[in-house]
């Protein structure tokens, strides 16, 4: 290259090889995460492969041995200048009012190399100025240079080819179909990769100039995948979140929820100070603002006045690892209660999550591998994992077998899709595993057998993406399925956990029976370092979320802490959540907003700092620990969650948190008492801030898991072992056979957009939650005498919601699917925690 010898990887494109060796070739259409198209011609350089120099697009020419490249020859420069001029002739000169100004590759190129004046005296191409191509994305076709990045992204990466080139030649434009907006969960990525200001997103339009922004690397908080992000702020306000290109995680992509979710943090409704009220009913039910001392003393007083087993903490996934540890210490080590659960009856058995051999995203996407999805739709719940899996299936020959209650965003790419009807999941999984391991009937041509064949043929072992499927199925169904799946030879697991830093919460011991470091409470010995830093330990095993709420409903809980949780909307049984909240003597909410549960029952509300407002770390579903960075200060006097816990500890047990005055100090104590956390050193975190630290015992390090089929732990003195299945998977009859004539088995799963608290406060996403819809299989329309598209009431023994009836061939016959938290139609109103299978009927209204 330019006379110097440069080494390149086999098959590497010239443009990438040159960049690695320090020569940046200008480009507009090339993007390292998408297939090259060679459209913009900006990256033309002179290449000689033995037949003399000729101009070649460096984004489409793979490097070959002995190739000579001249990136700065007269011919290369002339060609690049020519392209730049061509791009500029029809490009408007509205840089001063363009959001991209200051960070615009076209502007930068022009400033650096462009001609001083124009030779173009003709009229420029005109289009009506920006058109909204979706709720959040605006398109200015005059600025567009037709690089095909957004359209390629929509088609290749997201699989939502809803924007496309229209017209031809000089009249080509990007657009949507008539009245069919670019309603993609990933639309914001197109704004980020647009090399000019053609695509802009509503939350950032005209908000700031790039040179006024400061930026910090952090981790997305809205789901458990932990996509890496750059948080950008100006004047103490977060204005933009961009995807950061972490090889191991999100490749620079984000879902719109991750990207635009920061809007909620800027909401005027954010809690800026603690609030108290004397009663939750009657005349005194209005909250009043309080000082921190008063509020914390109120909580401490309530805690002092009761006994540990009458205290419970629900939630914690919103918190950083450090805050989670402090809350675990407060609850278990200071108060002494084990009634702590970060999940809300909607997740997996924490012992399983921590114990199963874990896979990384990279493992799941390894070319030629096989992925078994037993869980929710990744497109809805783990959107960047969806993008990675989709890429792996489409481009790298990864095979997907899915066992899901209804069709997912990946179904059309799956080799096999099995649809267990509600209540039969575990049995179906058992049959599948039997067939795959040869321990069951085989040789028939059933779908199960075909899917099992794929699993048998999986070379290096199957990666199971395991999660809780329909929330209308009881938790132990998923757990039983998981136990069956662990019989697959060398299977590894990527848990599809719900909600932000849930993995961190489980690792920190925010679950009944656990203490930090994947340790069982009952196994903590006297000599353990935990025992030294914690004043005490719970006397007995605690309750999970369901049992906590039941106990609270009975009046057996005096202090119920909602640690960023909203049981009324998130717990599987709305009625039980209501009774539990009302039954607890004192409900304390630690949150960013007054959510519905707090509004119903909280006496004390503690204003917490948001994810861009405090430092700390995040643990994703792989066990990858990455930093979360404070970029702005919290509103008012809102405090970081760890500070709140530390303060309460000190009030209850002076000296219990001495020295724990920063996230770093908390990390150090955690690493000291937990072998699992030991690798999280400050050095390790700063060494590779993009990829983070992958905790030992997870797949990528080769030594798979702290859990063995023998049940022998390999990590820690006494980490989590295998727990036996509560009920045999085949124990349950097929509920379809007992279905009443007009009855349906309820399926409910989460969607990306819903009526959740954070989304309610995101102006650009608020309207995106789909209206309540009851979906049934087209074959079932004969069973009810109601027309499709009419308003109906979905009724169970426990409650009802209102929705519009629709057909969906992705819903198995006999089932009815509603979204988990559609506005005004919470599906948990239909479900009782004690019931295995929820039967509903549909009535016209």
């Amino acid at each position, binding site marked *: 290259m330019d006379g110097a010898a440069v080494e390149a990887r086999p098959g590497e494109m010239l443009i990438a090889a040159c960049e690695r060796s320090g020569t940046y070739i200008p480009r507009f259409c090339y993007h390292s995460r998408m297939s090259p198209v060679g459209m*913009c*011609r900006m990256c033309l350089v002179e290449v000689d492969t033995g037949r003399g120099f000729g101009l070649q697009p460096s984004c489409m020419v793979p490097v070959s041995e002995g190739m000579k490249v001249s990136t700065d020859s007269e011919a290369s420069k*002339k060609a690049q200048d020519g*392209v730049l001029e*061509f*791009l500029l002739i029809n490009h408007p000169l509205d840089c001063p009012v363009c959001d991209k100004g200051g960070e615009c590759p076209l502007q930068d190129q022009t400033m650096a190399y462009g001609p001083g004046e124009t*030779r173009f005296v003709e009229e420029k191409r005109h289009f009506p100025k920006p058109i909204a191509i979706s709720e959040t994305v605006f398109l200015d076709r005059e600025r567009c240079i037709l690089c095909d990045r957004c359209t390629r992204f929509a088609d290749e990466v997201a699989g939502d080819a809803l924007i496309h*080139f229209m017209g031809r030649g*000089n009249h080509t434009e990007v657009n949507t179909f008539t009245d069919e907006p670019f309603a993609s969960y990933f639309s914001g990525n197109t704004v980020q990769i647009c090399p000019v200001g053609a695509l802009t997103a509503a939350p950032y339009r005209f908000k700031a100039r790039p040179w006024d922004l400061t930026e910090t690397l952090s981790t997305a908080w809205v789901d458990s995948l932990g996509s890496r992000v750059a948080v950008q702020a100006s004047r103490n306000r977060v204005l933009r979140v961009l995807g950061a290109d972490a090889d191991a995680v999100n490749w620079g992509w984000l879902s719109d929820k991750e990207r635009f979710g920061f809007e909620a943090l800027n909401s005027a409704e954010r809690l800026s100070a603690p609030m108290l009220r004397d009663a939750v009913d009657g005349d005194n039910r209005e909250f009043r603002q309080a000082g921190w001392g008063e509020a914390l003393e109120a909580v401490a007083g309530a805690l002092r006045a009761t006994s540990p087993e009458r205290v419970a903490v629900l939630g914690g996934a919103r918190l950083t690892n450090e805050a989670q540890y402090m809350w675990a210490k407060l609850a278990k080590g200071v108060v002494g209660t084990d009634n702590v659960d970060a999940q809300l009856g909607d997740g997996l058995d924490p012992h399983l999550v921590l114990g199963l051999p874990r896979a990384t995203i990279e493992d799941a996407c390894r070319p030629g591998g096989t992925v078994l999805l037993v869980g929710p739709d990744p497109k809805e719940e783990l959107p960047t994992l969806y993008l990675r899996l989709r890429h792996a299936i489409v481009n790298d020959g990864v095979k997907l077998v899915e066992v899901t209650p209804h069709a997912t965003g990946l179904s059309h790419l799956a080799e096999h899709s099995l649809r267990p009807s509600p209540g039969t999941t575990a049995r179906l999984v058992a049959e599948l595993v039997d067939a795959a391991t040869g321990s069951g009937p085989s040789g028939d041509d059933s779908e199960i057998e075909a899917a099992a064949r794929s699993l048998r043929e999986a070379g290096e072992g199957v990666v199971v993406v395991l999660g809780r499927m329909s929330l209308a199925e009881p938790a132990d169904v998923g757990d039983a399925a998981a136990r069956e799946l662990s019989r697959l030879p060398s299977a590894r697991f990527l848990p599809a956990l719900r909600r932000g830093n849930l993995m961190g919460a489980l690792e920190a011991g925010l679950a009944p029976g656990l203490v930090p470091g994947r340790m069982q409470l009952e196994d903590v010995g006297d000599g353990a370092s935990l025992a030294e830093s914690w004043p005490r330990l719970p006397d007995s095993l605690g309750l999970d979320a369901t049992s906590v709420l039941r106990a609270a409903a009975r009046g057996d809980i005096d202090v119920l802490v909602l640690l960023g949780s909203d049981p009324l909307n998130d717990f599987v049984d709305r009625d039980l959540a209501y009774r539990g909240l009302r039954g607890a003597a004192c409900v304390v909410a630690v949150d960013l907003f007054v959510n519905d549960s707090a509004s119903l029952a909280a006496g004390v509300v503690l204003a917490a700092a948001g994810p861009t407002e405090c430092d700390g770390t995040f643990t994703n579903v792989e066990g990858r620990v990455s930093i979360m960075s404070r970029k702005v200060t919290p509103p008012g006097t809102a405090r970081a969650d760890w500070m709140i816990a530390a303060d309460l500890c000190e009030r209850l047990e002076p000296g219990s948190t001495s020295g724990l005055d920063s996230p770093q100090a908390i990390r150090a104590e955690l690493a000291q008492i937990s072998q699992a956390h030991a690798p999280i050193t400050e050095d390790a975190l700063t060494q590779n801030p993009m990829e983070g630290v992958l905790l030992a015992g997870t797949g990528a390090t080769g030594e798979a898991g702290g859990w063995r089929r023998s049940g022998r732990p390999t990590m820690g003195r006494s980490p989590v072992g295998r727990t036996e299945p509560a009920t045999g998977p085949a124990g349950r009859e097929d509920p379809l056979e007992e279905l009443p004539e007009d009855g349906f088995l309820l399926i409910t799963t989460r969607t990306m957009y819903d009526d959740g608290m954070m989304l309610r406060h995101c102006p650009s996403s608020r309207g995106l939650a789909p209206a309540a819809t009851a979906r049934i299989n087209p074959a079932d329309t004969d069973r009810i005498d109601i027309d499709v598209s009419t308003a109906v009431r979905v009724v169970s023994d426990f409650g009802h919601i209102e929705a519009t009836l629709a057909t969906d061939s992705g819903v198995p016959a006999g089932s009815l699917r509603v979204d988990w938290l559609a506005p005004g139609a919470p599906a948990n109103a239909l479900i009782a925690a004690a019931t295995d299978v929820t039967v509903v009927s549909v009535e016209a209204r």
Partner: protein
Amino acid sequence: MGAPSATGGYLAPLPDRSAGAGYLQHAPGYVLNDGPKLITGRFVHEDSFTLERSVATGGYEGLRAALEMTPAAVHDEVRAATLLGRGGAGFPAGVKWGFLPPGKRPYYLVVNGDESEPGTYKDRLLMERDPHQLIEGCLIACYALGLQQCFLYVRGEMALAQERIAAALNDAYEAGYVGREICGSDFSVDIVMAWGAGAYIVGEETALIESLEGRRGMPRLKPPYFPAAVGLYGQPTIVNNVETLSNLPWLMVNGSEAYKGHGSESSPGTRMFAVSGHLRRPGVYEVEHGVTTFRELIYGDNFCRGIRDGNELKMFIPGGGSAPWFFEDHLDLPLEARPVGAAGSMLGSGAIVIMDDTTDAVRAAWRVVKFFARESCGKCTPCREGTTWLEQILRRILDGEGRPSDIDLLLDIGDNISPGPYPVAAHDGAEAVPFPPRQTTICPLGPSAVAPVVSTIRRFRHEYEAKITRRDPIPIEVVPVGAAR
């Protein structure tokens, strides 16, 4: 011939031109002259497109001859005949066929019937007048190469050709010439007609493949997308022109030796040339390849019989709208790819457009540039923006709004689309720059738009200058920042 029938295709019979002897009423444009007729032999029959006429006049005999041979022997015969591709590039078909990589099956045959190069029409006549000959050619190619599926892509605007091919395919399927177990043998192939919808660029083979995959017909970069390596559905694909394949039946019946008995040694056989413009007898002629000269074709009694009204030749396009232009000095070049290329142009698609001395060179150049600007697919920046810019400047000059700097600007824009010396005929003592042009684009469409500009500016710069009104740029007063006013 009264009112055209629904399937007649022509709206009225053509009036005979004064020098019209040789025109066939039922094959408008085709001129039956003296000389060997390898591929248009059946045109004299009004019903040449029917299976009955085809079979009665030796149709499918070439296929039967091929079926008697091994596939490899058929391929050898084509290779031995040095049958050159007739689409424009002139690459030997037998060699092209040999590029199919072993073991990467399936292979596909795609027939390029998307003829739309300005000035060109011979494939249309071959499709309309003798579809069975084309089908037979496809079958021979598929047999030789072991292809089980062939797509016959016909230009969208050619309704009659589509009709005739559809009818011929239906009859051929029915009669056992196409489909399962052809002529009772173990050879089976499906031929499916696909059609375009109005996009010149789809005539480019990789764009045609894109179109056949149901996408926008935008060319792919070669490499890696050489169709013979990575073509339709990513599989090795042979893309052959209609005329090329139409040669195969005659070749299989008469053999490669007989084939080489026509034309020149390096360019055997015959070629069809559409000769249009200011001529006394414009028409489509089947001409012996490589031996006839432009002069003969334009002035010869057996061909076009000279320029209309006794006018002088001003310039001519020797190979379709994409070719740099020729002049009087090039009349004695043979109709053969190599010498034409060396002289600075190309024989291309067999389209020769004659312009007499009444022609406005700037206007003629503008019209061809306008075509390319309209047909640019929009993929590559230099072509998408550059062709339109060229067209806008030329139109401005024609409108009397030209500026003195425009001529250099035109040439520099041309240089940014097609860098370096542009192919051009020798003139004023300067040597010819041989074909092809270099390009900053994926396909040659952009550079093609430069051809008329460079050709005419080199030869007729004075015509440009005469049109450009002397207008100096408006001076702009530059006031330094902070200067007192």
